[in-house]
């Protein structure tokens, strides 16, 4: 396929003639974008959103690529289409505070446990159904926002961090917690400070349950969260920590546990805390109780290994499977210089020539693929039923909130372009294509090559034409 390369060459030559004006200090000025062509704007849109559709295309063309990116980095409150907003507003997740939700499911769990043998099965079923209902609400809300919010970057970054600080909804009561986790621990900070994400995820009951810290207490250490916190959330596996650091951090984390009796659903229990001094990464953390957590998280968030690890992962998501080391280095510098300001790190990435050169070449994962097909098919029209979409994601191996392991879903083509994956993807393409009455707006897909055009010409119906468009090699990329 020559197309992405040709596009990259075109962009590179554009940069050469008009170098981007990146502000030396991180000032919130619009990104100076050297190219005003609609084709490039479309390529940016297909990368920095869940997929182009007519309305978002009109947006980016109207404001210009640089200003559109800038607005995405500092999103103003945005309205969804009324029916999507109404669907979210009437969810339990919107109407009841999390303390009340967990107190309710805890009550149900106890009722089931104490029920007579005859009633136990029904009570257990009711409990499970309530958990599943709450998880469905969270999944549906995610899909509605991804499909319809004009703040596309915020929604993409919310998924990115949900995947970075991944929890598995099938464990314990996490189905009841995952909606609040996304809404209050992750989404508000998706374009904010990394340290805030770290602090909020560490204290959230979903994480405390998933990585067992709810059970970690003095003399009864459980090192599960401590290890993944360094390996997966901050330093990376080569970040220079040892088994001793894992144990020290596990001791720091003792006493942070759940409170399902109402009010804040998690808290610090001083009597379960190991109050001795700890040596973490060469720094002494004095045994002071709850304050140790913030001290440890400060240390981890400001560690140079974290700046590199997180920057590289962002670049894998937005630039390339194996992103250029120079770009990652510059992003890591920004990360350190701004104390982990995510929007600033992204700004330095969007303004880079490496980003522009990479447009059109990233392979979509199943979620990106499905959402981009649906956005193209629906634009502002309502999604008839979220369940088939939730099912399709599961069938392709990337169900929402259901990565069983704490590493989150992988981000590279190698992971998602296996023969079986592709065959399944064409089935999903067909399911979407045959529900659309007319031809999809192909001009919003990445530019089509000759082979695809020739094949499209052989389609026997609008539906088959849609199937071929959504199955084309061009539509697999963003």
């Amino acid at each position, binding site marked *: *396929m020559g197309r992405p390369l040709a596009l990259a060459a075109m962009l590179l030559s554009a940069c050469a003639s008009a170098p981007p004006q990146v502000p030396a200090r991180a000032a919130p000025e619009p990104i100076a974008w050297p190219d005003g062509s609609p084709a490039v704007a479309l390529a940016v849109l297909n990368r920095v959103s869940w997929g182009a559709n007519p309305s978002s295309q009109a947006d980016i063309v109207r404001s210009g690529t640089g200003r559109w990116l800038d607005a995405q980095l500092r999103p103003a409150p945005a309205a969804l289409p009324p029916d999507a907003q109404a669907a979210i507003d009437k969810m339990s997740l919107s109407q009841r505070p999390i303390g009340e939700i967990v107190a309710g499911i805890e009550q149900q769990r106890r009722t089931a446990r104490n029920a007579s043998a005859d009633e136990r099965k029904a009570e257990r079923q009711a409990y499970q159904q309530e958990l599943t209902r709450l998880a469905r609400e969270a999944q549906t809300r995610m899909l509605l926002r991804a499909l319809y919010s004009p703040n596309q970057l915020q929604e993409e970054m919310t998924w990115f961090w949900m995947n970075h600080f991944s929890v598995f909804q*099938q464990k314990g009561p996490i189905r009841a917690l995952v909606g609040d986790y996304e809404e209050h621990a992750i989404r508000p900070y998706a374009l904010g400070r990394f340290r805030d994400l770290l602090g909020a995820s560490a204290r959230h009951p979903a994480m405390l349950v998933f990585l*067992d810290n709810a*059970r*970690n*207490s003095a*003399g*009864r*250490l*459980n*090192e*599960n969260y401590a*290890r993944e916190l360094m*390996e*997966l959330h901050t330093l990376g*596996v080569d970040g220079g920590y040892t*088994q001793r650091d894992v144990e020290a951090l596990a001791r720091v984390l003792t006493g942070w546990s759940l409170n399902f009796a109402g009010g804040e659903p998690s808290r610090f229990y001083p009597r379960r805390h190991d109050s001795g001094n700890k040596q973490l990464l060469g720094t002494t953390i004095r045994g002071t109780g709850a304050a140790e957590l913030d001290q440890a998280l400060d240390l981890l968030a400001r560690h140079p290994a974290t700046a590199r690890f997180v920057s590289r992962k962002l670049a894998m998501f937005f630039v390339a499977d194996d992103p250029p080391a120079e770009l990652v280095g510059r992003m890591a510098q920004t990360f350190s210089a701004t104390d982990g300001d995510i929007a600033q790190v992204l700004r330095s990435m969007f303004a880079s020539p490496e980003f522009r050169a990479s447009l059109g070449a990233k392979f979509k994962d199943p979620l990106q693929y499905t959402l981009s097909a649906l956005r193209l098919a629906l634009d502002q029209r309502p999604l008839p039923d979220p369940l088939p979409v939730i*099912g399709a994601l*599961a*069938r*392709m*191996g990337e*169900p929402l909130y*259901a990565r*069983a*392991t704490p*590493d989150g879903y*992988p981000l590279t083509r*190698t*992971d*998602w*372009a*296996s*023969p*079986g*994956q*592709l*065959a*399944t993807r*064409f*089935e999903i*393409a*067909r*399911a979407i294509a045959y529900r659309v009455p007319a031809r999809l707006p192909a001009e919003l897909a990445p530019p089509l090559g000759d*082979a*695809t055009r*020739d*094949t499209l010409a*052989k*389609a026997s119906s609008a539906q*088959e034409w849609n*199937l*071929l468009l959504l*199955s*084309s*090699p061009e539509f*697999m990329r963003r």
Partner: protein
Amino acid sequence: MNRRSFLISSVGLMASGRLFAAPASAARFLLVFLRGGYDAANVLVPVSSAYYYEVRPNIAVQKAAALPVDADWGLHPALAQSLHPLYLRRELALIPFAGTEDTSRSHFETQDSIELGQPLGTRSYASGFMNRLARELSARRAISFTHQLPVAFRGEAQVANVALNAVGRAAVDARQSALIAEMYKGTDLGAQVNEGFTARDTVMRDLGDEMVAASRNAVAPRAFEEQAKRIARLMRGDYRLGFVDVGGWDTHVAEGGADGVLATRLEALGRGLGAFSQAMGEAWRDTVVVVISEFGRTFRENGNRGTDHGHGTVYWVMGGAVRGGRVAGEQVRVGRGSLFQDRDYPVLNEYRAVLGGIFARMYGLDPAQLAGVFPQAKSRDLALV
């Protein structure tokens, strides 16, 4: 105390060629990866170790409950109906103190390094050892029963994959498949697209009317029995090299002893492997299944009646022609003094050496071919097949 009596380490033997009765073209190999690091010490139980009972006060499997293996070892009672009979028929061998020299105790790091099968310190994600084996056995068809192609199968040889818990009748018809393939002709995804359609059709043919659509997403061990029967149909049919993974072994909390969470998972896994051995029929004689995991767990139980990430584990080798009914490989008496870093089992049987030994016997690979699968590894022949 080292017991080396079972170990027949001989390069001469390796060079002499195939020792497996089945013709090389009929030989089947299935790798089962237990992701999460299963608690090996509670599966092959060191019943003669007082220290085991001392440091696992809440989760030990009592000697009386364990199924008899030999004077030092017993098998978890959840395997009574499934794998213990295989052991008694000498179709199952167990290799304790097996694993990798990677000591990161990270799931992902260790899984990757095992699947890549490269010398410690070098790491290229372009090539996993199962793919290199497929390449050495050029004519045989390889398949992974997973949503994604596992790291072990990455590389030059074309390998199919299918998630058996998510397959259904294809809605994209033959004409549309051909049109789609046309768009990918000559692109960097052309080979995958063709392989995807071929595998889809082969799987439908092999599974026939048994095919039922189901859309579970996780390979939960409970569903493993149904999957295992499908795997058997496919490996009896067109495929000769297979991979499947089963998750849910990361038991940090309340794993249980003779009963409980681990017992439930083991029971389901054992039932699946038992069903696989039966469903293979005559071809079971030509089949070798190896069950591995990234690491064992801490020898002592943790504060939550669970176990944390450890090091050495136990591999299982089974098949109709496996020389089983024994605990194989280099061993050491289980006690505090023999723990690695005072924490977990040591690794005395390195995975590349053990698997290399099995492949040499199964396929008659010469040292150069073995080095193609496991570069710079010294194969050790445990005379398992």
